[in-house]
Each structure stands twice: as C-alpha cells, then as structure tokens.
C-alpha cells in the first residue's frame, strides 16, 4: 500500500512536470494582444449592446448569442436530476419487495 502511494505521487509529479512545460509555453498572462482576445470577443464587446440590448456581456452571450447552448444546458441539469431521482427510488422499491 505504501509503495502504491509512492508510485502514485511519482507519476503525479511527472505529469505535473509535463503540464508545467506546456503551461510555460502559453502566451503571457493578462496581455491584451493574446490570441484568446480575437475577433469573436471583440464582436461581443463592441456590438452586444446594439444587438441584444443587454449591458452585461456575459448575460448577452449566455442568454442571447448562445441561447441554444443554455437551453441544452438546462436539459443536462434536468437529466442529472432525473437520474438522481431514479437511482434513489429504485433502491427504495427493492427494500420493500
């Protein structure tokens, strides 16, 4: 058991080194000319008020530009709730029978 824990920590540290090497190659944090800030976010920032009438851009994206995404997100939540109810209900029925 002790050897297993040691092995896990060694593997985790190796994985951490791999991820850190990748992270070091990312563009510097917090700069305005990073490739993340491309024409898509520019469009959201400049036209959100004209196209949706919402001052909060995150709300404009979630509820207007990507409304279908939000709709299916609620379906994900609904399915999870349904699965929880079914999982807990079956056990009750078995205990009775």
């Amino acid at each position, binding site marked *: 058991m002790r050897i297993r824990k040691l092995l896990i920590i060694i593997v985790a540290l190796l994985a951490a080194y791999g*991820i850190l090497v990748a992270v070091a190659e990312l563009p510097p944090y917090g700069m305005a000319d990073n490739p993340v800030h491309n024409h898509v976010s520019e469009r959201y920032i400049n036209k959100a008020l004209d196209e949706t009438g919402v001052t909060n851009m995150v709300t404009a994206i979630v509820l207007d530009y990507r409304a279908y995404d939000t709709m299916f997100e609620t379906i994900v939540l609904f399915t999870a709730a349904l699965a929880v109810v079914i999982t807990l209900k079956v056990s009750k029925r078995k205990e009775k029978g």
Partner: protein
Amino acid sequence: MKTLLGKLVINYPYLFAVVLFIIGTIIVLTRDNLFKKLIGINIMESAIFIVFIAAGNIRGGAVPILDGGRADTVYINPLPSALMLTGIVVSVSVTAFALALIIRLYKSYGTTSARRIAEMRNEVLKHDSSHQS
C-alpha cells in the same frame, strides 16, 4: 533568456491551476473513501475553471459590463466566463449523480470504502464461480 521558472512566474494563475489539478489527481488516486474521491474530482474541475477564466483576463481591464463611460475602456474577454457557466452546470450535475450513486452503493454494501467494496465483489464472484463448477 527566460527559464522555465521565469515563464511560470509570468503565468502564475496557470501555475496555481496545475497545482490544484495535481492535488485533485492525488486525492482521487490515493484516498479510499468515495466521498473524498468525489471532492478530488471537484478540485480538478475548479482547476480547469481557473485556467479558462485566467485566459480571458486582461491586466487592468474592466469587468465586461457596459456602464456608458469612456469609450477607450479595455474590457476583459467575456467569452470564457460565459463558457465556464456551462462548465459549472455540468460539474454540479456530475457531482449530484455521483453522490446519488455513492448513497446507492452505501445502501447495498454498508460502506463507502472503494477497496472494501471491491473485496466484497471479488468474494461474491468467487462464490458464484465455485457454485457453478
């Protein structure tokens, strides 16, 4: 010349996210209690959220809410924040379903220890195979 460490100091939010992710991985792999494994999964999810939110940030940028102020305001990228809202919903769904499954396992086996559940299952399987032969 910038060393690996110098680059990591510049990208310090990603560094914190990597540390969180590794902590979560170690918890998932070493802890025996299923609830603690689930907490480890949640810590890993938080690390992913931090990576995305940090990628959308700009130093000195304003929050992406228009207030009719100056026209030269630099707003941070609102897209990663909006995407992470979806991610949080998925995370909550996974956590809820996993908790329901753990409760179900506890009712069947009387324990939340992954090792003891595996032992019990092995015993049952051995028992069945010896009956058949």
